[in-house]
Structures are given as C-alpha cells and as structure tokens.
C-alpha cells in the first residue's frame, strides 16, 4: 500500500485527474468518444449534459465502477496524481479507497448510523481500536454536517433517516476513509430544495480538503457549486472550462443551446 501511495503522490503539480482519449464501449455501443479532461485539485468540477450523454459513464470510469458492468470496455488512459488507474498493477480496492463515490439515490447500508460510517475505516484498517473508530465516526459526521442531528441515535438504523440526512450520511461514509477525490453522481436529484441547499453548502466546505467531481442535471446547481464545468453531448466532451465562462460565454453553439434550454 505504501508504494502505491508514493506512486499516487508523484507529480502533484499536475492536474489531479487527467483523462486522455478515453473511449468506453457497452458491448458494441460506444458511450464515450475520445474524452480528454483535466480536473484540478481542491475544486468542484461539474459535468453537465442531457440524459444519456455519457457524463455518468465518465464519472464511473474514475473509480472503475464500470468494471462490474458486463460488456463494458475502456481504452485510453486516466491518471490520478500521475498514476494510471487502468494499469494492471492498480488495485481496484485501493483506488476506490482513494476515490469515493456518492450515488444518485441515497444508499446507506441497512445497518446503524455508526456502522455505516465505520464500515470503510474498518475494512481498510484505518480504525485500530474502538476510540480511534469513534473519533473517525464523529469527525466524519461533523464534516458532513450531520452529527448534531444524529448524535443521540448513532445506533439506530441509517435507513430510518430522511432522504437528505441519508445522503449526508453517505457523504460522511465516503469521507470517513479520507479519500482524495469524491465523485457525486446527481447527489441531489432525489432531494427537496432545502436538503439540496445543505448538500451544496457542504460541497463548498469539502472542496478545501477534497477534489470533487459532480454530475448534475441542474444547470443552476452546476453554476452555484462548481469552479469548472464540462459539457457532454452524445458521448463527446463538447466544451470544458471555467464555470463562469461556460455559462456566460460558451465557445460552442451546442453548449449555448443546451444552457439556454433549447434542447436536453
């Protein structure tokens, strides 16, 4: 594990994540065409685009969650901190410890709130004893802004929380293993506006310590939370740039049409 830590930390002055000519196929169907992206550290990068444009597919490439989909193949390369995550020497388990993921629908484990957060540290050997484990659970819940709401019922099932609380529990679970990157796949699409606002505030706080990549259908959300935005269409990365520039002065006609609501 140590050697891999070293590999991952080489070249920290480069982009945090660098994808080069990534092509993804689901069986015969090509889902991504030659996507090349640089994602910067300690920023929120939003990926927008109409349904089926490949933005979620790209997100799932970053922690190799596509590996479990049968018939899914990838060529091209993705570097995180300079090391190729698709090289044969890369351990998927270690990669996913470094690159956490929050899903569209809150999916806490059907276990207690405490066990939900403690699960990652336990399987990765981060919690040597009970006190250390308690510590991780408390700080993770605090970072996710959930601690005050659940501190009296840490042993109650995580599935008993409200939707927004469940999603923040999933975020706490993800940051409990202290990853470098957090991937969020439409994390607010199942939540009401108040819960959404809470998660967006959270992203602002988290970007100090983590690199966040978020897929979203809401352009307002992308504009609110991200510093960089990439627009996907039909499996192509149409345009990538600073969020302000993309929304105010897009370089491509397709981006302009999408942002102004002409299609999508």
């Amino acid at each position: 594990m140590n050697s891999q830590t070293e590999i991952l930390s080489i070249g920290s002055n480069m982009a945090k994540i660098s994808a080069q000519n990534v092509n993804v196929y689901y069986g015969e169907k090509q889902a991504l065409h030659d996507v090349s992206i640089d994602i910067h550290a300690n920023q929120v990068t939003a990926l927008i685009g109409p349904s089926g444009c490949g933005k979620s597919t790209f997100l799932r490439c970053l922690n190799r969650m596509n590996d479990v989909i049968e018939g899914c193949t990838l060529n091209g390369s993705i570097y995180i901190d300079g090391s190729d995550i698709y090289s044969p020497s890369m351990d998927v388990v270690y990669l996913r410890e470094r690159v956490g993921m929050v899903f569209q629908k809150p999916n806490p484990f059907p276990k207690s709130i405490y066990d939900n957060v403690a699960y990652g540290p336990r399987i990765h050997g981060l919690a040597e004893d009970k006190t250390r484990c308690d510590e991780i659970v408390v700080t993770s819940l605090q970072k996710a802004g959930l601690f005050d709401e659940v501190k009296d019922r840490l042993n109650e099932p995580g599935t008993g929380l409200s939707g927004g609380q469940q999603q923040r529990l999933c975020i706490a679970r993800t940051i409990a293993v202290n990853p470098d990157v957090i991937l969020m796949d439409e994390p607010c699409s199942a939540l009401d506006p108040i819960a959404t606002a809470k998660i967006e505030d959270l992203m602002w706080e988290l970007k100090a310590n983590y690199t966040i990549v978020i897929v979203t259908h809401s352009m307002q959300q992308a504009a609110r939370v991200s510093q960089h935005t990439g627009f996907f269409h039909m499996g192509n990365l149409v345009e990538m740039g600073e969020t302000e520039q993309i929304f105010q002065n897009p370089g491509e006609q397709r981006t302009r049409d999408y942002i102004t609501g002409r299609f999508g």
Partner: protein
Amino acid sequence: MTKRASHTGGLQISETAKARLKKRYRAEKRFRFFGIAAICCGALALLTLLTTVFSSGTSAFFRTELSVDVEMSSESLGIDLPLTEEALQSGKYKKALRTSFYAQFPGVSQRRDKRALAKMLSAGAALQLQAWLSENPDKFGETASVWVLAASDIDQIHKGNAPRDIEEKRRKVTDQQLAWYDTLVEQGRVRTTFNWAFFSNGDSRSPELAGIGSAIMGSFYALLVCFLLSFPLGVAAAIYLEEFAPKNRLTDIIEANINNLAAVPSIIFGLMGLAIILNVFGLPRGTPLVGGVVLSLMTLPTIIIACRASIKAVPPSIRQAALAMGASPVQTVLHHVLPLAMPGTLTGTIVGLAQALGETAPLLMIGMVAFVVSVPGSPLDPSAALPVQVYLWAESAERGFVEKTAAAIMVILAFLVVMNLIAVILRARFERKW
C-alpha cells in the same frame, strides 16, 4: 352526450349505469363468496385430518398398567442375597410374576385358563419387574404390589378403543378375560399412566411396548446430516451462481438443471442412493447418515433456489455502495448481501428440511425401513425414521398399532410446527438488525 345532458344533478345515475353497477356488485359478491368457500373447504379438510389424527392418536400417549402382588423371595425368583447386578440379571421374573398373578384369581387352576390369564400381561412386564426390583432392593423377600404393563388387547379394551359388546369370536379378548379384567378394575388394580416409554422405546412386535424413540433419533440424525451437507453447499452454490458466475450457456444449463432437480420424484434419489452411496461407496445400509445424504440431494435445490431468490432481492444499490467504499467482491457479499439474504434463505432451508422430514420413499430404497428395536446412538447406527415408522405401523394388523400410527403422525406434525416456529424466530432476529 344526450344522456349526460338529461342529468339534473351531478351525481345522478342513469338506468343503464345502475344496471351495470348492480351487475358489477353481484360479480364482486360472487367472487368473494368463491374465495370464502375455498378457504372454508381447506379449513374443513384440515380440521377433519387433525380431528381424525388426534382422536385416534391421543390414547397412545397413555398406557394401562395392572397391579400384581409379587412374592419376591429366593425360591420364587431363583436368586440369593446379595443382589448383585449379575444376580438381578438371572432372576426368573416371568415365572414369579405369573405365579403371583395366577394366585390373585383363586378359581384358576387349569393350564388353558392360566395361559389366557398370562396373556393379559405384556411381554415386557417381566423386565419391568426386574427394573422395579433393582430400584427397590430392600423389598426383596417381601410380597410387594408392583404395577406392570397390561397386554395390548387389555390396553385397548381399557381405553375403549376396542369394542367389547360384540360376539366373542370376533374379538381378541375372550369373555373369560373380560370377566377377569372387570374383577381387576373392581379391585382398583388397573390404572392409566402417561406413556413416557413411547418416546424412548424403539419399535416392538408388541404394540404396548412399541415407541418412536428410534424413529425420532433416526430422523433427527438424518436431518442433521442433511442440513450440514445441503446448507453450506446450497448457499455457496447460490452465491457463486448469483454473484460471481459469468452469464453464459453453461450457467444457463446449470440453472435449468437445478430447477429440474427440485422436481425429480424422490424415489429416484433413493435409487441413486442405493446404487451409488450404498453399492459404490459402501456406506452402512439403513443408517441416518445415508438417509441424510439422500435427503440432502432433495433439499439442495430448494435451498439454492430460495437463497438465489433472496440474493436477487437485495437491491443493487447496496452492492454499489459497498464496492464504491472499496470493499472487495467477497467482502461485499459476506458483509452486505448475504446478511440481507439470510432470512429468506433460512425460511427456504427450513421448508426444505420440513419436506425432508416427511419424505418416505427414498428412505425405503436405502433400507431405513427395517424393524429397529434399538435407539441409534450415532448417525452410523441403523435406525427408523418418523415417516417410515408411520408406514410400518400403518400396515401392521394389530389394533394397538392404529393409535401408535396416529400418535407418530402427531409427533411429525409437532416437529413441523416447531421447525416453522424456529424459522419465524430466526427471521425476526435477523430482521431486527436492519
């Protein structure tokens, strides 16, 4: 449109609509009646079954004893003090018991009458006397009143199972024996006690001595072997097929064959056990070990199907969550999928075991149908099994076995109820966790 226009109020119903409504209500009523009728039919059938079984089986849990004043002296028993184990073993209890019993009826002197009188005592009475003496050695040399088992025919008369007001030649108990029996009742020398021996004894040719101890232990060991073989194998197979196996033609064929296996007539598994487990591997015939192996072949597909269905029902989002947390595929299954699939799997397992408990045909093929007097001490001793015991007793001619058959069925039903209760409790326990 014109009809609508003719409505004055908003909710007025036209005549045709009224008729249609009426028809619909009638159809609904009819449908509900059919449903209730179906349930009533089922309940009635069950009630009939249970009433028959209980009314004819309850008496088997009781036994009739006669009190005999036995003279336990050196000359009557043929043994001397001290009463060592050996001395107790060699006593002539049968003779002593009979002599004392004859003495209770002063009018009996002829050989034929004596024989008829002796027939009122059970074949196991002498052994009972021996057991009594070894427990009460201080009574040696005295004449003590000892309760011993009555023969099955007397037992049946006393319980009212056998009719006594029919022609003499049509019943097994003679008028003379009936008169003696009535005298004994008058003297208070007949009593009914709970038949504990029914649960501990093995099979016997005498109905009053026959018990289901051997069958219970045989079934218990067979189910234990069956569970130990089929549960780990079934769960492992289900996990592999559902979570790890590639979806190709081979796994399709395997899946189809598992479903076929569940539908194979059980006697074929018995034949397979006979041909392979007994003849090729040479395991001991008629033992719970072999019975359990054969039954596990039947239970295995049930468990695999139940476990696969429960694994399939676990939402994929849980797997994704675990994988995204960096859990390995095996950790994902063991930490998250399997615990969630356990309640369903356990229910399936217990349903499978309950089927196995009632399965008779394969056990007949592998020789678990023998007349077994001893209670097995391990899965390697020959033994009976509960359903086979029912089968054996059901085809016995003697009246005494009728109640035994029903009682054995009651025991099987009790086992099934207990097993289902365990399933419910286990489910509740596992489900409380999440």
